[in-house]
């Protein structure tokens, strides 16, 4: 039977139309565009990858996955907002194209070749979404289903990676001679692990090697895996399950996306599937399937999206809020939450000693940890993908703001005893980590604006000056710069409380001071 047109229908390009310029260019080919699909008239045309990605998104949300939750909101004009319920929660009607994170984040993972964890109760379409991603990568549905790894308590490393050939085990004279029958999924560009929190701890370690380093090892034999997008499912994001998920494996996950509840208002959409006996993954339109070469080009295009300096500075400022812990040590470089964690000292004891700062105002006091380099790289990567997906020429602050909570969920851990969470108006943030992280980013941007760092950031100016290089710079100029650094440090520390951003600024100034000092010594030795 022919595939039903309703499941094959793609959103018409452009899916993200830009405001048209006043100039009017008329194309006679438009004569044949209209409500009637002319499929074969368009054979051979290629769609830009961002457009193709958006068409894939709209096909997924309009046809495949019923997820009418537009929680990634963008506005190009003031949105309409309502306060609802006794708690006066905000219902926003966005004024620009907005997205459902449940469909969007897997697609951005697909574009960045990242690692995405689907969480949520059973039967919410986590596995179906992951399979769709496999089909979008050009694999037949059967292959995707067969290659999917299902976590279970008896799963061994051999189950996961492959078995040594029995004949070789008997006849081999050395380990090198033992051939391994590697599992086919290792060679795929979309890898799916269903219920990863049911995999035994030892097997999780083998999985970590594949995820982190892109190779598998059995009996000393190495199998190199291609770069891939990873999709995992679990019933919760805290690593619980049959086995506790090892910390390193959880840290490798780039984004966590929650399958939100089904809205019964959309029950009619389910009816069609049951009555027609159709599964969305069986009827993915070929127009939105990416070939292997296209996947590589897509990934390359995403990486190329620039991040403007002003957006990058706000990311830096936000990231600098969290690692600093004034009571954590004696030496300046070790005043970090990581020092506390490594020492094993009780967290409550350390925070109790933290006095003098406004612990309510300081965003850094809301967490028990800071951001790792991997977290920041993921944030950059997904912000670029978000901007690319929206057809932007560069990453905007709103791209970062919307993507940040999904990247930092489960990475930036809240301190439930922090004064911030004790405030009645912030009580909801104890359970809504997405809302909390976005709120924290907003607070950070407010503070950034208050400090007027867009216009007056002497540390950034000194960094830019240093980045121009030291060639042809004489001793007098270097000494002048050193004096400016020392004066700035003096101003920063005089009578001021220490906050995360100040801490990182001072470390940066110390770094610059040290580089100039070394250069000055080198100049002296040269003479």
């Amino acid at each position, binding site marked *: *039977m022919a595939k*039903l047109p309703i499941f094959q229908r793609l959103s018409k390009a452009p899916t993200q139309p830009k405001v048209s310029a006043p100039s009017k260019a008329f194309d006679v080919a438009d004569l044949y*565009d*209209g409500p*009637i699909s002319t499929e074969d*008239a368009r054979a051979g045309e290629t769609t830009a990858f961002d457009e193709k990605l958006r068409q894939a998104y709209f096909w997924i949300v309009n046809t495949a996955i019923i997820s009418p939750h537009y929680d990634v909101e963008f506005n190009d004009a003031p949105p309409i907002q309502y306060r609802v319920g006794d708690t006066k929660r905000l219902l926003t009607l966005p004024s620009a194209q907005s997205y459902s994170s449940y469909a969007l984040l897997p697609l951005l993972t697909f574009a960045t070749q990242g690692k995405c964890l689907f969480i949520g109760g059973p039967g919410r379409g986590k596995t179906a979404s992951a399979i769709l991603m496999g089909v979008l990568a050009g694999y037949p549905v059967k292959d995707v289903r067969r290659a999917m790894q299902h976590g279970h308590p008896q799963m061994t490393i051999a189950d996961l990676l492959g078995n040594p050939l029995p004949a070789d085990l008997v006849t081999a004279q050395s380990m090198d001679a033992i051939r391994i029958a590697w599992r086919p999924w290792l060679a795929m560009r979309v890898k799916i692990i269903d219920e990863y929190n049911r995999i035994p701890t030892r097997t999780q370690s083998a999985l970590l090697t594949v995820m982190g380093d892109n190779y598998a090892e059995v009996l000393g034999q190495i199998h190199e895996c291609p770069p891939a997008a990873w999709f995992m499912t679990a019933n919760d994001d805290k690593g619980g399950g049959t086995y506790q998920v090892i910390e390193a494996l959880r840290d490798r996950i780039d984004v966590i996306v929650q399958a939100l509840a089904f809205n019964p208002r959309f029950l009619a959409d389910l009816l069609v599937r049951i009555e*027609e006996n159709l599964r969305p993954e069986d009827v993915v339109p070929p127009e939105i399937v990416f070939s292997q070469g296209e996947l590589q080009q897509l990934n390359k295009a995403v990486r190329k999206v620039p991040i403007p300096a002003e957006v990058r500075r706000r990311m830096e400022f936000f990231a600098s809020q969290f690692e600093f812990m004034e009571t954590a040590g004696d030496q300046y470089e070790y005043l970090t939450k990581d020092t506390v964690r490594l020492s094993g000292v009780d967290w409550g004891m350390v925070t109790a000693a933290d006095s003098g700062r406004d612990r309510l105002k300081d965003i850094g006091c809301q967490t028990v940890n800071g951001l790792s380099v991997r977290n920041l790289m993921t944030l950059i990567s997904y912000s670029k993908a978000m901007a690319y997906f929206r057809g932007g020429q560069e990453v905007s602050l709103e791209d970062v703001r919307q993507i940040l909570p999904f990247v930092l969920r489960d990475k930036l851990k809240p301190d439930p005893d922090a004064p911030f969470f004790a405030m009645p108006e912030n009580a909801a943030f104890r359970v809504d980590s997405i809302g909390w992280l976005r709120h924290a980013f907003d607070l950070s941007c407010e503070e950034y604006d208050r400090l007027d760092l867009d216009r007056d950031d002497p540390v950034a100016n000194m960094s830019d000056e240093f980045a121009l290089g030291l060639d042809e710079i004489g001793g007098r100029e270097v000494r002048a710069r050193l004096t400016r650094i020392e004066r700035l440090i003096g101003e920063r520390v005089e009578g001021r409380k220490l906050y995360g951003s100040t801490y990182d600024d001072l470390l940066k100034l110390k770094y610059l001071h040290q580089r100039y000092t070394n250069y000055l010594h080198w100049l002296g030795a040269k003479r």
Partner: protein
Amino acid sequence: MSVSAALSKVLAATRPAFNARVATVRRAQSSFDEQVFSAIVTELLDPVAASVEAAAPERTAAVVQAGFDIALTLAARRLAGPGARRDFVDRLWREVMPGLARPVSERPRALLGGLTNAVLNIAATSGARPGEWLDLMTNAAPLATSATLLEIGQVLAWRAGMSHYRDGALNAADLLPPATSLALLNAKGDWTKVRARLAEDRWWRPDRDSAASEDISIGGFTGFGGPFSHPPKVCVGPEGFVVRSGERTLLLVADCYGATLHPVSPESFDALPDRPAALDAKGVRVGDRVVPLTIPRQGLSTAADKTAVVVASDYSYDLKVLPWRRP
């Protein structure tokens, strides 16, 4: 109403699939009217199926498959059949398509869908003449092949008043055999020379001997289906004439085959200087030509470029486009 043997044969052979398609659209769209759909199949698709059966029977099934999907869209959107606002799609399928049986049989979806979209676009363009396009297409049918039909449609759309497609239509004509291009424009002689003159003078028509071009009237009150809610004002801009009527700002594109209006941003009008054409006792004076006026001089809005004068009035919802050429 009974249908031809050709259509009933294909419908019978693929009945479960066709029924499923109808059921899916019906579920997705509660306003879907099966009687309208049935009328489209029997009155519009059937003549096409019958003509294809006569010209290329081995392709009838493919044409019906494509036509069935298009009929579903047409019915779901009320673009054809009983209840449609206009009958241009009906006329296209009933009068034009049977004459294009062979090309349509070779590329059914592209040509059935493309030409249907074309007639809808022409009908939706203020100033264009969809009825004339249908007549021209009917006459040009013997010249068409599956490879040239879309280009022929483009050239004839220009002739039927889609003047904003002038450049694209000329390029499309270049892709056709010269004899076909000349025939489509009702021209004689050497296509290269005709083409060169068309490119040089937007008011010259190869089928008219006279050098004088006809005046064009475009517009009308929105209450009667026209584009203007208020009497329009006109200015001349870098890309042509820009017209303001109430909240709407429109670009006016005109040539020897007609004039069309296209929405543009309000800034396109606001930024333009008000440079009216010169008025004297005899009428509007442009270069060495005087265009006599038949409307009151009070409340006039005029604009002129190198080849035309546009006149609007506070007392009219119509614009007059007056071509002028140095004698």
